[in-house]
């Protein structure tokens, strides 16, 4: 059985520290997610995070608890937690990290909405992850 979790959040560190803060997150996640058979993607745009993870329910739960109490971000808003039939992602990676307000707007558009009403926003955010994870077409 598989569980998934997708959320958006706001960074608590200044933009100038982004590289120094995200490097260790990437390192831990690469290793731990692989160990836990968790796949998905993380996006960091300007001042906001969005992340999708999926895997064995206990593993997703365990990571969720760690991530939810991590002081490097706040205002976590769950956009989706479902039981997908099969995996949506083949591995885990940072799909995007940069200054694009276009990407940040897509993240912010789902923040502050009650989870039940984020259907369209959730689909759009999931598409954002997918587009960033697609094999390069050009």
């Amino acid at each position, binding site marked *: 059985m598989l569980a998934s979790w997708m959320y958006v959040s706001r960074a608590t560190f200044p933009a100038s520290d982004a590289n120094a803060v995200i490097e260790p997150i990437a390192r831990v996640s690469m290793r731990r997610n692989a160990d836990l058979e968790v796949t998905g993607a993380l996006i960091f745009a300007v001042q906001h995070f969005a992340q999708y993870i999926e895997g064995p329910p206990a593993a997703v739960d365990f990571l969720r608890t760690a991530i939810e109490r991590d002081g490097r971000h706040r205002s976590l808003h769950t956009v989706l937690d479902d039981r997908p039939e099969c995996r949506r992602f083949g591995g885990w990676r940072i799909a995007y990290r940069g200054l*694009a*307000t276009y990407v940040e707007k897509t993240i912010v558009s789902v923040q502050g909405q009650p989870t039940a009403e984020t259907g369209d926003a959730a689909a759009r955010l999931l598409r*954002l992850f997918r*587009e960033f994870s697609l094999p390069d077409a050009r």
Partner: protein
Amino acid sequence: MIRSVYIVDDDASIRRSTAFLVKSAGYQPRAFTSASDFLREAPTLLPGVLLLDVRMPEMDGFALLDDLPASLGALFPIVMITGHGDLATAVQAIRHGVRDFLEKPYEDDDLLGIVARLWDDLDGHLSHIEQRSAALRLTGKLTEREREVLILLAQGRPNKLVAHALDLSIRTVEMHRAQMLERLGVRTLPEATRLALAAGLLE
């Protein structure tokens, strides 16, 4: 310092209004009617943010991305602007090095916010390049031996271990060390270490 903003758009009225907007915010605008005009001049232009319209007749914005030499890419952060944006196109553009993507019609403040953020980032990048070349110039004055001594000391090794590693006497290491500091124009090892780091000697 001049903060340039380059505008590439085939529509004269948009060139004029965008130039006016960025100028009123303190930037130095320069407009081009086509991507190929910009590309031709790019090697001689000061670094700046490039506002690029994607649907232009002669050469579309995507073609410019492929033709802009990688060495120039970092000096001209690109904002792609389009009237027909969709998520897939935006992500494709960003994956090809575009720094931000803006859909028309947009608010003036949205554009100015993006330009300000990218210029901040460009400032950081330019000062990094400048520090690196200054550090390279200074460390370039060192003899081979002094450079070796600098690298080992910068890695935190005491004179004794440096002497051992280079098969020299401690006294000789001390002499190279003093000479090295003098050539770099610094008084302390931490200052010299910063230069070694900036010059990429410790990578």
